[in-house]
């Protein structure tokens, strides 16, 4: 099956239970959410959720978009793609500090990443990237020795205020 990634942006009332209502639509259909980020918007009455799913058929996504819209606290729903939006995430990667640092710094620089914490055993790298960049960064860091990865999940914004 073709790997299909869908990113859904939802503007929702900032109230108890709103997140659970949204997430329930995915879990009830047996779809796993790849990543989910929610935070207040400029107006704290609302929150913005970015939901990423993969391996989800287009017809199912269309139905979920309608169902999301049907939820009472949901104000707006949009499906985002590469053409109409920018998607990024924050990744924190802890790598082994035993090796020589030159290579590590070079990799970090290539990806605009920073080393934000140093200990005798580990370095922690902070990167802001999209899915593709994330995958290459990981491949390059693997030989250095990755100890732990923490990802924020994708956040997306429409290119020209479409939502």
């Amino acid at each position: 099956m073709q790997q299909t990634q869908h990113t859904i942006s939802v503007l929702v009332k900032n109230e108890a239970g709103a997140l659970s209502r949204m997430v329930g639509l995915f879990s009830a259909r047996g779809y796993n959410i790849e990543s989910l980020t929610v935070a207040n918007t400029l107006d704290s009455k609302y929150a913005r959720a970015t939901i990423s799913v993969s391996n989800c058929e287009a017809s199912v996504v269309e139905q979920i978009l309608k169902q999301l819209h049907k939820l009472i606290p949901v104000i707006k729903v949009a499906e985002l793609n590469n053409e109409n939006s920018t998607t990024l995430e924050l990744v924190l990667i802890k790598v082994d500090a035993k090796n020589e640092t030159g290579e590590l710094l070079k990799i970090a620089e290539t990806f605009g990443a920073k080393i934000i914490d140093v200990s005798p055993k580990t370095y922690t790298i902070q990167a802001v990237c999209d899915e593709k960049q994330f995958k290459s960064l990981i491949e390059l860091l693997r030989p250095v020795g990755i100890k732990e990865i923490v990802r924020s999940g994708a956040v997306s914004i429409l290119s020209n205020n479409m939502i």
Partner: protein
Amino acid sequence: MANEVITEQLTGAQILLESLIKEGVDTIFGYPGGVILSVYDALYHTKDIKHYLVRHEQAAIHAAEGYARVMDKCGVALVTSGPGATNTITGIANAYLDGYPMVVLTGQVGANLIGNDAFQEADIVGITRSCSKHNYLVKDANDIARVIKEAFYIANTGKKGPVVIDLAKNIWDQKAEFIYPETVSLEGYNPTYKGNLKQISKAIQLLCDSKRPAIVSGGGVLSSNASKELTELARLLDIPVATTLMGVGTYPLDDEMALGMLGMHGNYWANYAIAECDVLLAVGTRFNDRVTGPSSKFASGAKVIHIDIDPCSISKNVAANIPIVGDAKIVLQAMLEEFKARNHEINKETKDKWFAKINKWKQQRAIPEIQSEKLHAHMVLEKIYEYTKDYEPIVATEVGQHQMWTIQSFNFNQPRKLLTSGGLGTMGFGFPAAMGACVADKNRLVMNIAGDGSIQMNIQELATCVEYNLPVKVIIMNNGYLGMVRQWQEKIYNQHYSQTQISGPDFAKVAEAYGAKGIRIEKEEEIIPALKEAIEFPGPVFLDFIIEPMETVYPWVLAGKPMHEVLLSSKED
């Protein structure tokens, strides 16, 4: 001090009841318990709301739904926390799938105890999230009035449905100012009522150009009271009309254009007409799998015009060529105007061919197969229909063979006369729903047609019927089996009747023990006298018809088969 305006402070319990009264509520079905005692205390002091004490919370919800269906008004139920609330789930899910408006008030433990696994605590907002249209948790008395206003608005608008309000115990004695809001403000909730005019114009054109059009009328037509408009459109444009189970009664069955019910146990000709139509106008239906069979093979040669108030229903199961989101009545009115304004023409000649074809299909009927000494279901139900039709009764059913036999034997020519669980298929629905119907329409004959299996699922409501003298006439089609399941086992599971033979009590004696009337009927000549006695009796009656156990429901489209593969007898495969 002199300038201070003193407004009336009420307790949360009083605010709840005052808010309900503002919404026009005069009837509640419910069951008291620990955390809602204050509400029951407030009820004790009000004359404006009549409370019906049921014997199980599930029945309160079904009764509220029966009431809502007959009254075309939001039903209301009141229960306590924990088990009181979890017992309502089946009822809420039932109303949600069939789209009837209801507000369910559940008690909750005090806000300071929520999440502590307190006595009789259940996360009812979490549990009902996926089976209600919306739900609320209220922890502050100042929110009660607004939430009640919103709940009734949500339940009654768009695709109607149940709204659950979970009310924490601490709000009952909390005093707050009572101001009932005039309007609701729900930014994310704006149902579409008017259909897109361009789409409507295209739909009319397509229907006029069609050679073999057909209509499927669903529960949405009933919900928006659009039978008149649907009937007018069908007659003007010469289009035959099939109904779904939820749409039974939306198109008069004695009409020439009526196809009756389609679907798994629908009429042969209804299923064939839909399978072979070139344009299908579907109104207020979500194309349930019991209606369509495998959706890829459903009306595969047809262009589909789909009108529904719920955008989620459109192109969910059957792809629509012309989707129209809107209220059935408003959209059908606009279609009628469009047709009349444009002098559209219909090709009578092609239509005559189409009707000739349908009339030929109409010869294909299921023939009763079993000959036995016992009473036969169709004979019994046809006699009941003939004997009671002048009363224009309300007929509730449970779920199973008797449900399908009822649809086949009764001519439902008006909407809101059949109360049946379509979406969820809930055994135990009919009896309490009939009870709610009795409350709604006190002078009408109300029957519940049941099986000996289903009636045992809410039989305790006999006590409620006796206590409030709700004269439901319960017709039990007693065959000693969970007949519909047995029928599947007979056909598909090599006659392995696994756990479908079911015993029951002497139903007539049970009725008598509760203080109702019970009559057992075993012979044909006993039927009419029993009906006469039951109808003349001023209270609830159980009529226990001992019928042939091996009878089956045909026509039948086996699960997974396309809808035109209709079997008319057990001899066909």
